[in-house]
């Protein structure tokens, strides 16, 4: 990680930690919303940005996670933070199951399939599958998370929970970037034929990208369920998938700081232009269009070399 990036993260962390002192509850809640979308976008970035797989159904994995946590909590009384890993795991398994038959598809074809997937999940939830999802009304009365006897209820408290998870995620995903796994994803985005010809099992890595991205969406879903205490199918509409997709492309596909900035902008911009009422989406749309024309590589198209520079320097010095 470069020094500039590290400083950027530290400044952002300090600013977020201090935010509740300066912002009202509504504004903090907007930051929480940013945090949840950052998590979704970082997960999708593995699939779309790193592996280059056009997934326009990310909300499906988010929904699986949120409903898993909600059902486990309301029916079995499992604390929500205990449900979190289960949510991640189930979302990953679900992703493996649905991606397996379609994962060989390229670009636009995969995009269409994943749109279908998102809709199937949403409609299945409305139709109350297995009598567990509560139909169009969703699930009520999800308990708040408790950490060390401290109940997380207020937006301030959620801020630390959500952004704490963001910090862990960023740390882990940067590690992933500079590893054999991260490289394999990059190779198959750059040229799947050359990747396979270099000995990389492209099918396996596509599936792993899907599973890992879905796992993060699932865990994020469980936090969302705990924050809202009510979840319903409309929270996981096609629009959610589009927005997260947008965040990755807008911020800079494959760039961890990039997609974080992308998520922040997509969430904050409509808030900033709230005075324009219904016209704010027009402004939003226009900005997107101008962005894609002027800066198609994204706002922060930062690319990490997929190895540790220290390793290369040491090896060069040794010869």
């Amino acid at each position: 990680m470069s020094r500039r990036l590290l400083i950027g993260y530290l400044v952002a962390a300090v600013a977020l930690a201090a935010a509740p002192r300066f912002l009202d509850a509504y504004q903090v809640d907007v930051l929480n919303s940013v945090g949840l979308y950052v998590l979704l976008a970082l997960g999708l970035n593995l699939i779309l940005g790193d592996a280059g797989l056009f997934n326009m159904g990310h909300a499906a994995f988010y929904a699986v996670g949120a409903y898993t946590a909600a059902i486990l909590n309301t029916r079995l009384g499992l604390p929500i933070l205990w449900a979190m890993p289960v949510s991640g795991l189930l979302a990953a398994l679900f992703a493996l199951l649905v991606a397996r038959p379609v994962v060989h598809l390229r670009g636009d074809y995969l995009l269409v399939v994943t749109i279908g997937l998102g809709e199937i999940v949403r409609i299945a939830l409305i139709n109350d599958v297995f009598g567990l999802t509560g139909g169009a009304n969703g699930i009520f009365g999800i308990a708040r998370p408790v950490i060390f006897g401290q109940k997380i209820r207020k937006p301030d408290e959620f801020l630390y929970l959500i952004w704490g998870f963001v910090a862990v995620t960023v740390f882990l995903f940067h590690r992933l970037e500079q590893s054999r796994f991260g490289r394999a994803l990059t190779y198959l985005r750059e040229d799947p034929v050359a990747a396979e010809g270099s000995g990389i099992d492209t099918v396996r890595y596509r599936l792993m990208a899907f599973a890992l991205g879905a796992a993060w969406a699932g865990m994020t879903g469980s936090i969302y369920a705990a924050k809202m205490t009510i979840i319903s199918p409309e929270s996981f509409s096609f629009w959610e998938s589009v927005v997260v997709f947008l965040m990755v492309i807008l911020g800079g596909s494959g760039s961890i700081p990039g997609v974080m900035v992308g998520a922040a902008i997509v969430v904050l911009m409509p808030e900033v232009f709230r005075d324009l009422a219904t016209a704010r989406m027009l402004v939003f749309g226009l900005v997107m269009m101008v962005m894609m024309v002027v800066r198609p590589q994204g706002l922060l198209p930062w690319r990490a070399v997929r190895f540790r520079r220290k390793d290369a320097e040491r090896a060069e010095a040794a010869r």
Partner: protein
Amino acid sequence: MSALLELRQVTKTFGGLTAVDDIGFDVEAGLVVGLIGPNGAGKTTTFNLITGNYRVTKGTIQFEGRPLTSLRTNRIVRLGIARTFQNIRLFQQLTALENVLAGRHCRTSAGLLAALLRTPGQRREERGAVERSLAELDFVGLAGRGLVLAKNLPYGDQRRLEIARALAADPRLLVLDEPAGGMNEQETDQLVGLIGRIKARGITVLLIEHDMSLVMRACDRIVVMEYGKKIAEGTPEVIQKDARVIAAYLGTEAP
């Protein structure tokens, strides 16, 4: 003792077109074998059959006595056959070193968890992979270019980078598809030297090439194809004098 690679009655059809027609030849371990023939003779198709990019319609291909015909490409690489492509297929947006690390992938094993936890084993393996990849860059004559993006390398260097990537996979058979394509005379001379050094490492080479000066200097044996069929096989001296080969390349006079 059987040959390293054996093709037997290999046929590949695309719809009504027979691209490779009942081809059979052996590649003996330790040799440099050339596959030549006019454009459209089916040479690259034959390569794609060996490397698993295409499935054979009929016949068998065996590597070290093991059939390859139903394996996917990445499995074949793992067994010890690495290749380069006719139209260079590097990861253009990545550095030269990252390109070579791709070849190292199948000889390393650290998975997702090891990467997330950055275990000592994973770090050791990463260091080893980087060292080895830099050594391969050095071997093909690209020392010091590790951090240059592949797309910014000159054409001849890109060809050599592709060879370095293939070598990093520890192949026992290296399959080169027109390695001298687009190279000038001087670069071709260097390539002949490089192929010699690859052979000296004990790696068997099978190559397609149109540059006859390279083929005649670099190859121990030559297989000639025309219209999907094998028309001749032998040492460079024999092939140069073969009437059918001369006819295939120069055409025959009207009787």
